[in-house]
């Protein structure tokens, strides 16, 4: 592996990193308020909506976005497609950030966070709890991701012996790293089973929920790899990796087809199809979600489009929106706390700023670490000079845009 990756030799402090740092700092200020005065002082959470955007975006959607490492591990190590290997390290880095910050967000969202440690005490565990599975699995996966990421650190500090030793056992860690997300991503669906009829009929597919959760996690994982690679290409002015990405596009296409067939088959089987067209707000959200799922399927079904980096990116972003909206719909928008409920929820500005800040931290961390450690494939670095010289128009704006972008 060594020699295949190298750090980007660029300035650490740039306009995008400054903007990201400011956004992160705002989030930290709001979090200080949250810990000083409690959840109620910052969030719009209430008895009917105990889970707001911090759980549904930062944890449920955020860990879905962080499935890049998982998706690539499946392809590279399980399906043994070595050609995708250059994409693994950047994806792992993004996964590491996504999962760690997702775990931290879950902690931030806990009203009685000081009881958190009980989750790890065997005598306190409730083995029937889906939450326990998710909590332990995510924690374990954060550790696994860190170990998977270790070779980059060891290379940086030139600890060859340690790296050789780690390489010998790394396959075990990688195997666990494939197993764990399979478990907890599907458990996110099991959480919805446990919520029963509080989840709208359009999303409550009971026993199929774990399958939808894992399938969307995989498609989101592949999409985020395309997304990251595209933005790195443009934002950091490097070579395109479209030749690798189109293979991933093909996988997304197949998975998406399965998702949509199962999704509508399930709606038909449960007799829930009329609810799609009843004109309610939820049916509207369902149609948007479906459209977002269909767009990438259409784009990726064309071999010509799959070869174009720009079309791949459109498909990937649409898929990311679709996956995110599916989870938002199931957990929040299609959620009815009680019959004839008067409960309402919309994230407060402060809640949103915390989520934005957490995403900013992820991107900031990513940008700093690719400049510090050998993460990105080595071959593109040579071309960098020509890229900067030939077209001054692409110098700044895309990088800046890239940083704001993922804040969605």
């Amino acid at each position, binding site marked *: 592996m060594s020699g295949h990756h190298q750090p980007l030799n660029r300035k650490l402090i740039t306009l995008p990193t400054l903007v990201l740092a400011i956004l992160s700092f705002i989030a930290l200020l709001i979090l200080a308020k949250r810990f000083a005065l409690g959840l109620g002082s910052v969030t719009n959470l209430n008895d009917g909506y105990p889970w707001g955007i911090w759980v549904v975006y930062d944890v449920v959607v955020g860990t879905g976005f962080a499935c890049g490492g998982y998706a690539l591990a499946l392809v590279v190590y399980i399906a043994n497609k070595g050609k995708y290997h250059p994409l693994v390290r950047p994806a792992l880095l993004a996964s590491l950030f996504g999962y760690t910050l997702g775990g931290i967000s879950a902690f931030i969202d806990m009203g009685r966070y000081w009881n958190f440690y009980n989750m790890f005490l065997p005598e306190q565990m409730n083995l029937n709890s889906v939450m326990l599975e998710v909590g332990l699995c995510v924690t374990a996966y954060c550790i696994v991701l860190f170990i998977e990421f270790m070779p980059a650190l060891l290379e940086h500090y030139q600890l060859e012996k340690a790296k050789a030793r780690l390489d010998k056992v790394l396959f075990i860690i990688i195997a666990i790293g494939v197993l764990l997300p399979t478990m907890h991503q599907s458990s996110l669906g099991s959480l919805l089973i446990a919520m029963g009829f509080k989840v709208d009929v359009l999303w409550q597919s009971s026993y199929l929920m774990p399958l939808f959760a894992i399938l969307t996690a995989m498609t989101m994982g592949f999409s985020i790899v395309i997304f990251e690679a595209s933005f790195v290409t443009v934002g950091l002015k490097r*070579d*395109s990796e479209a030749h690798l990405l189109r293979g991933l596009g093909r996988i997304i296409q197949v998975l998406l087809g399965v998702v949509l067939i199962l999704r509508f088959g399930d709606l038909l089987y449960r007799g829930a199809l009329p609810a799609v067209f009843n004109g309610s707000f939820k049916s509207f959200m369902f149609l948007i979600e479906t459209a977002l799922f269909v767009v990438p399927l259409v784009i990726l079904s064309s071999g010509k489009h799959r*070869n174009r980096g720009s079309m791949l990116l459109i498909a990937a972003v649409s898929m990311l929106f679709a996956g995110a909206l599916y989870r938002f719909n199931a957990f929040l928008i299609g959620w009815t706390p009680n019959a004839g409920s008067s409960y309402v929820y919309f*994230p407060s500005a402060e809640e949103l700023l915390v989520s*934005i800040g957490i995403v900013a931290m992820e991107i900031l961390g990513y940008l700093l670490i690719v400049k510090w450690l050998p993460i990105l494939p080595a071959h593109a670095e040579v071309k960098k000079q020509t*890229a900067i010289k030939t077209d001054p128009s692409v110098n700044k704006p895309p990088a800046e*845009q890239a940083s704001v*972008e993922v804040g969605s």
Partner: protein
Amino acid sequence: MSKSTEQQLEDLAARLGLSRRHFLKFCTGVAATLGLSSTAGMQMAHAVSQSRRPSVIWLSGQECTGCTESLLRSTHPTLETLILDMISLDYSEALCAAAGHQAEAARHAAMEENKGKYVMVVEGSIPTKDGGIYCKIAGKTMLQHVQETAEHAAAIIAIGSCASWGGVPSAGMNPTGAQPVHEILPDKTIINIPGCPPNPYNFLATVLQYVTFGTLPELDEKNRPRFAYGRIIHENCERRPHFDAGRFASEFGDEGHRKGYCLYKLGCKGPETYANCSTQEFGDVGGGAWPVGVGAPCFGCTEQGVGFTKALHEKSEVTTHSPPDIFPPINAETGEGASAVSAGLLGAVIGAAAGATAMTVKQLGKAEKEAEKDQMAANNPDGQAVPGKDTVNEPQ
């Protein structure tokens, strides 16, 4: 029911000045206190009506006779006679008709006659300091009396807090070295019926079980019968809902006290005291006739190390659930909808994501077109990227 036993019941009822029905009701009630079936109540009635009644020797040490008084007032006026009739109370300083040497002789006679069969009841603590000289009966110390009587007793019951834990005489500096019965007789099984005074039915139920079945009730780790001392007072307290809802009396006579709120903050020891006071109540009058029911905080008389040890107004250890600091509001907040700022912010985020994607797509598209042009120029008739080959799409 055979005729002879039926006759015996009638005889007993006549002797006690009770109706037969009244007598059976009493026995069934006692059986219910013990948690036994109504059949057991009948068995008890029969056992009581037998002419052979167990001999009971009741010793009194450092005490106030409150336990005896409590027992005498156990229920309707006629039942004190019953209690004295269903057992053969051969010695009791408070109740026996005999006095002086006569009384002492009665005790010795009963002990001889019923060797190994009599029930010994101890009321009050036993002084041990200076050879136990602080309590003497008939020229002997209480210590000697207890040791002597215990030797051939079939069962030993320590009634009241003094006999069970030392009680008032042992409080504070314990000037007489007062000890409970189980400290004096470490090798014997003692049944403790603590309380100041104890509920008479806890004692009666224990004795009646012994009389009827020849067995003793199941005991807890402090040798108290479980049927009476198995639950914390707090668990079945009628004021418990006030505790859970956080409504406390904070001073005697304040609004909360007058409204019957929880007495926890006045030092009620109910949350750490095991007894059935809250369910059995006292005096057979119902209507919350027990200390907490009438607004007096429980002082923990049945609990070793609580009654006579802790200060009266000291807050008790809550052995179950502590009262919460914050209580849920009656009208739960139903949340807020979108504000202009938050909706705008969310819109901006989605817009930024879409915008950045559009920009990047544009850049990628531009780069791809240029690459295609380059390839066209290199006489590639397809005008497309060749699959499998490292297509260079430079970002300009």
